[in-house]
């Protein structure tokens, strides 16, 4: 007998989406995969590109967050995180409707890093496929929420699906999905033998000798996503890539970089439980990055992108852009 009522409902809401709808936002099947239309990626392949929920549903997540933040600041704020659903009802907010409207507008811009990543991999001559609307949610959030047995079940299911499609290698781009597929899943699945690499590792291994040139001279600072730097230990590959691009001057904070990088404030479901605090932390991190004097902030995680954009907006800084590393590489390759 557990105390599931002690899990903040913002999180149980997301967990239910994963287990019942197989994606974080609970949107319809296929909605997330639209970004890949026209890229002509095969579904059948030993190596697949794993897009993850984060980028695909970035715009939906963003509107969900702004909604949650609005409610969090209102008078009824404190009980909010304990009961998202009931407040959505009481305030007459139709969250599903909001997502639908956002969907119809299209989230192409947010999914741009995925398009860029695919173009970069193509340019590097790597052969891979994409499962599109058959791509399962990695379910990592279930683990972080504390629903380990649900996660274990989900992980076995996901593993089974991937094996059934004869997948052997995965190139994954969302840091937390990568850690889940590579590390967490190994603990829940006997005989796990999928080779999982992060996109930036694949790029770093294949760019030597290539002409990479950013369209303009720019001072860049890099924000390390927690899962990429401290969970997956990928400190050097993103820096190696940025340093290989002509026109980019990498400038970093004295202390808060690499394994000492400050979290953007969105992690482990934190943003759904403490939305307002999450925004304060986003502002703090954005400030540290702005203080480096960079003109462009590069990071490599959909959550970080969302948080840092929010942080910059709150700071009223509108002359610094946030881009994903995949986009920067694509621009430098001219693809």
């Amino acid at each position, binding site marked *: 007998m557990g105390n599931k009522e002690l899990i*903040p409902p913002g999180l149980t809401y997301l967990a239910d989406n994963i287990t019942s709808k197989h994606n974080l936002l609970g949107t319809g099947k296929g909605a997330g995969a639209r970004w890949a239309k026209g890229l002509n990626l095969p579904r059948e392949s030993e190596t697949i590109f794993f897009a993850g929920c984060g980028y695909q549903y970035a715009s939906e997540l963003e509107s969900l967050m702004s909604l949650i933040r609005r409610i969090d600041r209102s008078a009824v704020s404190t009980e909010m995180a304990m009961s998202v659903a009931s407040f959505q009802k009481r305030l007459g907010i139709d969250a599903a409707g909001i997502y639908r409207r956002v969907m119809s507008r299209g989230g192409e811009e947010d999914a741009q890093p995925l398009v860029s990543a695919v173009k970069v991999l193509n340019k590097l001559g790597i052969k891979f496929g994409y499962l599109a609307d058959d791509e399962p949610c990695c379910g990592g959030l279930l683990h972080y929420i504390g629903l380990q047995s649900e996660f274990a079940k989900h992980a076995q299911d996901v593993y089974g699906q991937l094996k059934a499609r004869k997948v052997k290698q995965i190139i994954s781009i969302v840091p937390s999905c990568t850690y889940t597929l590579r590390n967490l899943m190994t603990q829940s699945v006997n005989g796990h033998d999928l080779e999982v690499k992060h996109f930036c590792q694949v790029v770093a291994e294949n760019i030597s000798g290539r002409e990479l040139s950013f369209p303009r001279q720019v001072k860049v600072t890099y924000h390390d996503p927690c899962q990429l730097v*401290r969970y997956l230990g990928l400190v050097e590959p993103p820096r190696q890539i940025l340093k290989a691009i002509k026109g980019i001057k990498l400038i970093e904070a004295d202390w808060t970089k690499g394994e000492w990088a400050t979290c953007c404030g969105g992690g482990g479901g934190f943003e759904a439980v403490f939305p307002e605090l999450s925004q304060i932390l986003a502002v703090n991190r954005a400030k540290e990055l702005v203080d480096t004097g960079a003109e462009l902030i590069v990071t490599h995680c959909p959550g970080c992108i969302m948080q840092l954009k929010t942080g910059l907006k709150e700071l009223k800084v509108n002359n610094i852009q946030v881009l994903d590393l995949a986009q920067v590489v694509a621009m430098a390759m001219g693809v």
Partner: protein
Amino acid sequence: MSVFSDYKNELMDAAHNERIRLALSRAIKSYRANTNEALRKFPHTIKLAEEVREIKSRAIGEMEKLAQQACEAFEFNKGKAYIARTTADVLSIIDKLVGTGKLIVKGKSMTCEEIDLREHLEHRGNEVFETDLGEFICQKLPSRPMHILSPAIHVPKEDVARLFSRITGEELPADISILVDTARKLLREKYFQADIGMSGANVVAADTGTLFIIENEGNVRLSTGAPRVHIALVGMEKLVPTLMDAYKVAEVTWRYANYTVPSYVSLVSGPSKTGDIEKVTTYGAHGPKELHVIFFDGGRTELAKHPILRQALFCLRCGGCLYECPVYAVTAGHFGDKYFAGCGTVWAATISHKTEKAAALAYTCLTCGRCKVRCPMQIDSPAMCVEVRKMIAEGYIPPPED
């Protein structure tokens, strides 16, 4: 209102409190600079920390044996030693020793804080003076300690000046050296008037029966040296097998607590004694005539059995993790209960048995993992918090004692 709502309110009040943020940003900057400098100057510390991790890992598995051994050693040294299983056991031992109407000077001790010892003693008609400057500020404000090493970390100097002006009736400027001098004057006589001195310990050698108490102010030397009775309350996780082990633990502790070397380390093994007249050993020379050491279990031996959460017992209480926690940077000890952040979450869940508070704390962890990078014991706080979430969701948290 639920525990979660209250907690979230408290956390958000703190997050909007400019004073806390100001004090913390100053503290984080100076902590990082000092620690980096201390580690640069004594680079062997990093290897030593690995060795200490091994020492602690072994010692946590044999706390019971070490406590027995330490008790024998202290008794051999003519001190008195006790093993207390519960908070009630600790309080009953202390009540017998202290009684009522006493003046007590106290060094900072998180273990005393854990069982609200000061409040208990005051309630029983004793006058208690916290002598650590930060703890003194917290006692007078009043506020609960917001950091394990620097309890008044959340109070900027301007607020201390206002507080001390109120106490002394003089208009004091926000000049740190004047404020420190004021505390010295306020507490000076208390050490010599006190009946009892109380302390904790940073680490204890079981073989010789020796308390290591690390400090910089000198208040612990006075508190444990001047009164006739010294009572030390020590969590069982502070025990290590040998004097040399204890030394290693102490050095790593102070280095990660941002000191190249602290001003004082007191090694206390027994009551004060002299043999200077006819070689006849006589107890209670200049220092205390009585030394009482209480080893407190309070759920620690149970916690030591958990494969993931036992890491919380490795904690040296250097406080380094807190300076790297983005949530702590804006909320201070409000992200905590008796202890803070990751270890505080485990403590609330398994030692204090506050399931709802533990849940709230566990979900406050960003799981960003920077604390682990700082920790000399590499304690994986995100993993511990996720484990607490799981235990709560699956109902593994045992009910409160008694």
